[in-house]
């Protein structure tokens, strides 16, 4: 870690008791989130990305590992309280995220009350937060959530997160339920906040094109594990992990002629209670070879900013990889 680091996640594990056993939703994830940086966490449903977000804020108990805020471990009430003041969260469903019985003004004021901010500051800060997300405080302050559109709700949620003037914002699929034209509005708001306030974002999404447009760095998750991470252009333009490669090519491109060659994966994501042995991606991997079903690969530097958890990049196995390609 360095001075730039806002949060550090180390070997974090989160487990749930499921019907068929214990689901390892997050299974040893390490991440570094720097100040003012947009960190994308990309993955399909079931990859554990939302659980990771919640675990980062201590909303779900972690089984192992640590979360550090500026180098200090977050454990105990005081440090958790500090974390929750400085890092806020935005949720996916704009229809679920607001208390239907509270007015917009109340919703945005609530964090100030909870965190014990002096009453005199409330009005000015709420106004500023609402204006920052493009909502007129006079028009919207007295409305109930049901009087708002989906996009407006998500703006209110962002305002409520901003009102405490956090340094970081964890956004869990903030636009996945919005229509295309509204989606870009919200993303613009977030981008604007990053630019003007130097706000750091953790942007959790399944949509690679959004990550491409918005993120500085990207971590790709598969089945509770980060399989590749690096700067956004590197990861998306030169993906090193077969899963990332498939993911990138699977994204349909809205332009004449569509995208290029698709890399089709077989099968579907396995259950988190039954993680495959060895590399957890190997049953679906088009490039699996010899040791993949036995060796669980660590993140291996592949040059530049990138790390990939794939044996293809293990220098010790280079000959075998060569042989496999030869087949």
């Amino acid at each position, binding site marked *: 870690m360095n001075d730039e680091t806002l949060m550090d996640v180390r070997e974090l594990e989160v487990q749930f008791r499921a019907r068929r056993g214990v689901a390892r939703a997050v299974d040893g994830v390490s991440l570094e989130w720097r100040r003012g940086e947009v960190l994308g966490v990309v993955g*399909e*449903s079931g990859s554990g990305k939302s659980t990771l977000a919640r675990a980062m804020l201590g909303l779900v108990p972690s089984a192992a590992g640590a979360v550090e805020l500026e180098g200090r471990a977050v454990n105990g009430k005081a440090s958790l309280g500090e974390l929750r003041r400085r890092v806020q969260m935005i949720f996916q469903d704009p229809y679920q995220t607001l208390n239907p019985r509270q007015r917009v003004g109340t919703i945005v004021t609530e964090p100030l009350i909870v965190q014990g901010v002096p009453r005199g500051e409330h009005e000015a800060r709420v106004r500023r937060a609402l204006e920052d*997300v*493009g*909502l*007129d405080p006079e028009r*919207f302050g007295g409305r109930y959530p049901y009087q708002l*559109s989906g*996009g*407006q709700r998500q*703006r209110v949620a962002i305002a409520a997160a901003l009102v405490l003037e956090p340094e970081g914002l964890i956004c869990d699929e903030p636009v996945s339920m919005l*229509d*295309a*034209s*509204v989606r*870009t*509005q919200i*993303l*613009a*708001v977030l*981008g*604007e906040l990053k630019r003007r306030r130097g706000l750091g974002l953790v942007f959790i999404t*399944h*949509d*690679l*094109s*959004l990550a*491409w*447009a*918005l993120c500085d760095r990207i971590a790709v998750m598969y089945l509770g594990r980060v399989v590749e991470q690096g700067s*956004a*252009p590197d990861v*998306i*333009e030169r993906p090193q992990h077969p899963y990332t490669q*498939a*993911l*990138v*090519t*699977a*994204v*349909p*491109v*809205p*332009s*004449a*002629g*569509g*995208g290029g060659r*698709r890399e*089709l*994966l077989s099968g*579907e*994501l396995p259950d988190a209670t039954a993680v495959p042995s060895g590399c957890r991606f190997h049953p679906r991997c088009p490039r699996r070879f010899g040791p993949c079903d036995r060796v669980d690969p660590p993140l291996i530097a592949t040059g530049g900013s990138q790390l990939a958890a794939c044996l293809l990049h293990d220098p010790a196995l280079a000959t075998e990889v060569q042989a496999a390609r030869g087949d």
Partner: protein
Amino acid sequence: MSALLKVSDLRVEYRGQPIVDGVDLALERGEAMGLAGESGCGKTTTALALMKLLPPALKQSGAVTLRPPGVEEPINVGRRTEAGMRRVRWRHVSLVFQGAMNSLDPVQRVDAQIAEAIRLHESAGAKEVRARIDELLTTVGLTPALGRRYAHQLSGGQRQRMMIALALACRPSLVIADEPTTALDVTIQAQVLQLLESLRERLGLALILISHDLGVLAETCDRIAIMYAGRIVETGPVSSVFEAPQHPYTKRLLDSLPVIGGPRALGDPIPGGPPDPGEMPEGCRFRPRCPYAADRCLSDPALRETSAGHASACHFAPWSEWPAAAGAGSLEAG
């Protein structure tokens, strides 16, 4: 060869409010047509209207004519009775819904549901039906054993494949797929889209693909129609529409979508949101959100052809050059 499907001036009203407002469409045999639009623009309603499946509260008018291969007389859907429509449905046109979980009867085995559809339209013996089901399942890439399962015992991708198998059960000439991949992850979506494409080639199916995802349509369809607030605002060959959009809505939408491989920045968003059916703006419905709006936009623009097969409902079309938009990048809430 005449068009497989011809829709003219299709209107659907709910409590006196227009939800679909004068839609014209034409589809050739074997052609794939994309229908794009945001939620609430009337694309699903249009799809259901084509099969006359709307709830009675939704009043439908306008002409829908089908000319399936091997049928002499064109089928006038608008005039058909419920009983008459039953012979058309699935035999000639079938449907794939977005939530495959909810599209299959949860307490009946899936093969029974396919068999039911087959028996309904053809007199086939039990063995014949069985063989046909196995063949269908193989066609969509499933093992025949999966037919003995219930919907909940299948994964999302398998369910969608099963739904496609059901749609193909009576060998229709047209399949309407309404957001067939929305609930799926990208890797599974890619599988399903691939399947649809290959089926279309092999069976000569015509396809109406409804989606909010322009990328999906760009990769799958020959032609595309963009809907906005109950109307088609632009239609044309995929290449032409994506390369040279002729309606500000299409243009702004495409500009605002981030594209992998494109610039690593967010485009300017379209301000505001789509109108309520009860409060439709006068004239062009996109006018309040349009940066190019002028006085003439207060009158209704007709869908006019700007080049071969490419039409736009904009008074200013054809656009040869798009000027820089005024008021772009506004953060005003939609």
